[in-house]
């Protein structure tokens, strides 16, 4: 065993989970594919793990009028295999198939990935581009947060201490929508050095680009002209600038192809 000692609880309801979180010192366990390594490396040393694995309501998905609501515990592999409803014409399964490795995708979850807010996480960038919304549940009820506004920094989100990311709502894309998604990494499954998503959906009047793996929250562009990019990239070093530009250029080319 490698982690520092922790207590373990497996609540049977979201309310019970929120109450355990409110005691302080606890971390939520979803699929554990990022938390496990961090515990083993002792980068985090929580007093308690609150395992969401017993909450069936977080595993359910449903079709909405215009899109889907996916439970936070839906795994990347379920999305990859088409075992979760997809309102995006194949965008979600393609993205899922490129996350880490199959053994990780079998356990890792959509909600866990978003709440963890690793800048290099695929869903944070992709779902910001698609205009998705997360549903956060707390003791006082629920609130909706745009994925684009979820992360405030690397591994930091607007979620409260005792709030749980319960579900993700993803709007449907229209038939004429164009999509490009590129990750720059040295090896399949590695954390990306840069990533870019381009989404143009005339049917919904949307055109935006999102750049991820930037050491901070995803960067959203409605105007991705040279001038706008130059201004946004001022704070990065020349190597990073080249990486982000290359990822974006390839994503634009993919969307326009």
């Amino acid at each position, binding site marked *: *065993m*490698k*982690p*520092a*000692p*922790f*207590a*373990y609880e*497996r609540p049977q309801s979201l309310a019970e989970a929120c109450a355990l979180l409110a005691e302080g010192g606890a971390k939520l*366990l979803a699929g*554990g*594919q990022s938390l*496990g*390594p961090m*515990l*083993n*490396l002792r980068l985090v040393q929580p007093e308690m*793990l609150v*395992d969401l*694995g017993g909450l069936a309501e977080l595993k359910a998905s449903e079709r909405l009028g215009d899109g889907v609501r996916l439970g936070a515990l839906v795994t990347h*592999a379920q999305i990859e295999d088409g075992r979760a409803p997809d309102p995006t014409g194949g965008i979600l399964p393609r993205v899922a198939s490129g996350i*880490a*490795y*199959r*053994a*990780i995708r*079998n*356990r890792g979850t959509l909600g866990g990935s978003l709440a963890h807010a690793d800048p290099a996480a695929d869903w944070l960038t992709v779902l910001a581009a698609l205009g998705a919304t997360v549903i956060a549940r707390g003791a006082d009820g629920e609130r909706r947060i745009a994925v684009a506004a979820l992360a405030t920094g690397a591994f930091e989100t607007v979620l409260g201490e005792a709030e749980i990311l319960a579900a993700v709502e993803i709007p449907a894309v229209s038939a004429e929508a164009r999509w490009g998604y590129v990750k720059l990494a040295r*090896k*399949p*499954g590695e954390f990306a050095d840069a990533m870019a998503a381009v989404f143009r959906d005339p049917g919904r009047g949307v055109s935006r680009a999102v750049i991820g793996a930037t050491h901070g929250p995803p960067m959203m562009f409605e105007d991705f002209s040279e001038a706008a990019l130059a201004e946004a990239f001022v704070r990065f070093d020349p190597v990073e600038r080249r990486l982000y530009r290359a990822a974006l250029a390839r994503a634009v080319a993919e969307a326009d192809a």
Partner: protein
Amino acid sequence: MKEVSFTVNGRPVAARVEPRTSLADFLREHDLLTGTHLGCEHGVCGACTILIDGAPARSCIAYAVACEGADIRTIEGLDDDSLAAELRAAFTAEHALQCGYCTPAMLIAARDIVLRLPEADEARIRRELAGNLCRCTGYLGIVRAIERVIAARRRA
């Protein structure tokens, strides 16, 4: 300490575990199933890959306490599995191992590839193997062994 119960290779197991005990350590030290190997212990190298509810998973970053009710299968539990037998023969024929440290998990990953992607070509097999590191073979024999089993199944 927490009570937990699950099945390992079809056999019911009930134990009291410290929550921080990884599933890999539990299997190796409580059940003496040492075919599950530990490499990096943070989910990167793939040496500890086993089956949880039929799907490959890293046992070094799963905690035994969180596996209540799960169906766990290790390489030892695939002795009588016909596909695992085909893969073992192919690994031998193609010299798909040298030191053997990655091999139990390679067999589990290979079995998953054959079952899930019966049309996989060399490029796809290589991509799917990205999550299992081998430092001896350069993957050549491993990829050939999986290709051999896929080709044989296609002819059958």
